[in-house]
């Protein structure tokens, strides 16, 4: 009697892992798009710092009227543009995260519905080609947690930026880069490898 429930759960898991694979690719491409933007953000901060360090009236450029204000306006405008683009990328990252979250919670929901039928022996049973249900659900949770953490950390970096604090802007690319954790990405790739046979075994 637990057979049909187990089968449907397997089906859901398969779908979920496929989705995870696709989303993982989208996520990585989004991040590669973001990194040049972050670099240019740091450059703009550096230019603003240089502008505030110089006294234009002491240079040959003093004949140009309102030069400092104009330059500052231009810099702020381009900072704004870069931030806007980053924001767009962030919302695509968010949609990736939400899609993974929804998939995982759907699987959990399906399991919870059938929790009475599926006893622990069934869910911890492993075979040569397929890991146990409990392992796979654990991996899905791990992956979901990873994406949530990554998204939240990146969001905090961007949200903590303030126009009046140039040092924060300058250090932002470095902090952004430090958030990349290759080991966590490898972990997800590992997981996908582990479930490869299971996905193929339709």
């Amino acid at each position: 009697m637990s057979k049909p429930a187990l089968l449907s759960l397997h089906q859901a898991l398969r779908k979920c892992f496929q989705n995870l694979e696709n989303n993982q690719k989208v996520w990585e491409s989004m991040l590669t798009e973001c990194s040049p933007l972050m670099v240019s953000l740091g450059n703009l901060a550096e230019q603003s710092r240089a502008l505030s360090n110089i006294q234009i009236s002491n240079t040959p450029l003093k004949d140009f009227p309102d030069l400092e204000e104009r330059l500052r306006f231009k810099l702020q405008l381009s900072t704004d543009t870069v931030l806007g683009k980053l924001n767009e990328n962030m919302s695509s990252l968010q949609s990736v995260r939400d899609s993974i979250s929804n998939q995982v919670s759907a699987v959990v929901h399906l399991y919870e519905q059938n929790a009475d039928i599926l006893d622990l022996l069934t869910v911890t049973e492993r075979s040569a080609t397929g890991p146990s249900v409990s392992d796979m659900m654990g991996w899905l949770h791990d992956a979901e947690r990873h994406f949530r953490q990554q998204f939240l950390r990146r969001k905090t970096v961007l949200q903590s930026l303030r126009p009046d604090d140039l040092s924060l802007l300058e250090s932002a690319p470095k902090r952004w880069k430090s958030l990349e954790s290759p080991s966590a990405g490898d972990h997800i790739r590992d997981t996908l490898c582990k479930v490869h046979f299971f996905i193929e075994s339709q």
Partner: protein
Amino acid sequence: MSLRLLSVDSSDRGSQRCRLGPGLMSALGLGLGSPLLVSVPGGSCLCTAWPRADLAEGFLQMDLKCSSPNLIFYPPSQLCLDPGQLTPVPCPKLKHVKITVVVQSVDFKKHTPPRLVHELVKDMLKGVYVHNKHVINLMDFDTEIRYVVIESIDLESSSAGLITSKTGLEITGIQTVRHYWSQLQGHHTVPVGGLDEVSASLREMLQLPLLYPATLNSLGVSCPRGVLLQGPPGVGKTLLVRKVVGEVGASLVVVRGPEVVGSRPGESEEKLRAVFERARSAAEEGPCVLFLDELDSLCPKRTGSSAPENRLVAQLLTLMDGMNQSDRFLIIGATNRPDSLDPALRRPGRFDREVIIGAPTLQQREAILSVLSARMPVSPSVDMAELAQRTTGYVGADLSALCREAAMHAIRENSKSSGEQVVGMQHFQEALKAVGPSCLRGSLGRTELCPLSWDQIGGLDEVKLKLKQSIEWPMLYPEAFVRLGLCRPRGVLLYGPPGCAKTTLVKAAAGSTHCAFLSVGGADLYSPYVGDSEKALAQLFRQARACAPCILFLDEIDSLIGSRSNNQTPNSVQTRLLSVLLNEMDGIGLKTLERRGTEKILQAEGAEENSTQKQLECQEVCNKEVMVVAATNRPDCLDSALLRPGRLTHIVCLQARLCILRVCTQSMPVCADVCLEELAAKTELYSGADLENLCKEAALLALQEENMEASTIKHTYFLRSLGHMRPSLTAQQIQSYQKHPR
């Protein structure tokens, strides 16, 4: 079957998982990810149950994402749990939760809009099972938000629930980690004995402005904001501050002198400003204490023109003045050298209150000892009251050293004979020999005494009685002294011919009481520098008073201190020393810093007064003064001012010769034919030292005559050696002593 608690896998960190065997899970009726409450000593932890990857039974690994506050500081480890300590809890979806957010830095708290904090926290908490009053650890997100404290949840039926995206979050407050920790650690305070009054007044100063801000505003006064604690080293100034801070739950900002001082010009001032800024930001979240330990090193007297310290002192003064009404933090300074502080620091408005913590009194010592020994296995034979009586002049640090030493003795003894570990009175007595009061360390007249009992001195019963009266009785029977309105004599002058056991008597007196004993002679005091001797004598008295009751023995006082009447040079060192001695013995009062115990401090809460009055009086009799014992054989050379009634009681030492002979011959194998009475009659004008010499000569003579085989000393030897000797006293001398010296 018990479960061994292992540390959590790194991949599970932050996942709120609890890994356990599948058999146990099905026994408890748990599915994958079912919420589970694990109770451990000191708290509990809410987890989700997952089978272990290796499916092994008998082990438990849990991630402390949601746990009692205690477990954050003391994570359980090396534990064996009973399966009964795991309980499945139903966790319905929550509609509404009240939380407090704990963030890392003050900057984040100041600059982040509440909306963003709400958004971030909501993202972080989604899908987390929470328990009422638990703390959610959010370290794994690696942001500024560190913890979330669940203040209340909307369920009556259950104390735990699941936060979903539809749960409404209400942030009741944002704290910094530092403040949150200090609040939590307030519950683990160190016990401090004997400083109740001071700690009550400090607590009042901290709490009043927080509890009744409106009252203070309506009175138009500001609460005092600076306290200067002063007292000798080791009385527990630093400990007291930590205790009060812990009790009130205030946050503590500590400044140690050397940490602030930097090498570049202006660096020290900058650091000091930063410290004040830190205190100010901490004060925004609750009571805060800025503690300047060893203030004398930070803020010495300003001297000369442009010493770098002067700028530091000036910076501290301006910072203390710059505190405005809204800064609700208290500055506590502690020093043991208040005289070397800059006087500008001590005016009201900067350090408003000065609290003097003196060396502990008898009752305080008893309280301290009972606190110290509370965690030691002390045998019931140990009488803390007696121990407190014997430790006059000991400060808290000395007492703790004493207890440690006693415990070490107990360990050493028990390691020989494997008995139970109990610290007995004999261990404390051993420790008393090793640990002396710290106020006497490096003192001028500290002397090692071999204990001598009264019985080892022949004769002189009257003199012994008088010495006992003036030294022993006030310590042993203080109630009787209070009842009869007696006060303790200030000093005793022992005079008599040379060699009549004056010094020996003082030794016995010091040995029979347990008070401190200081002895000085001329060599200790004299110095080629003008004023140095006087200073040394005054210092000696100060130290003696610090560990009163104390016997101060001035041997050969006639050479030490001259007489003003028959001296040719009126301004010699001797006369100046005499004036110092007279002042110290009969001075107008004590310096404030030398106060014993703590002063009475007026408090808003009335304190009970009369019950302890009687006890205090008794204590005063014991503790009051330093006993000066002087010895001379030329009383006529002393100044009349020193000899007037009320200063030195005169005791003449003239011994009964028979008694001396008895004591001297006690250890000698004297032949039966020796008639001590006859010898005593024949040795008129012999002093005690002469008689001792006589016995020695007789014994040597016996050895000489009988070629080292002598077993007894015959009467004839005594008579023969008497024939060679001559008395050292004259009849005239004896008469002059028997007359009153003036």
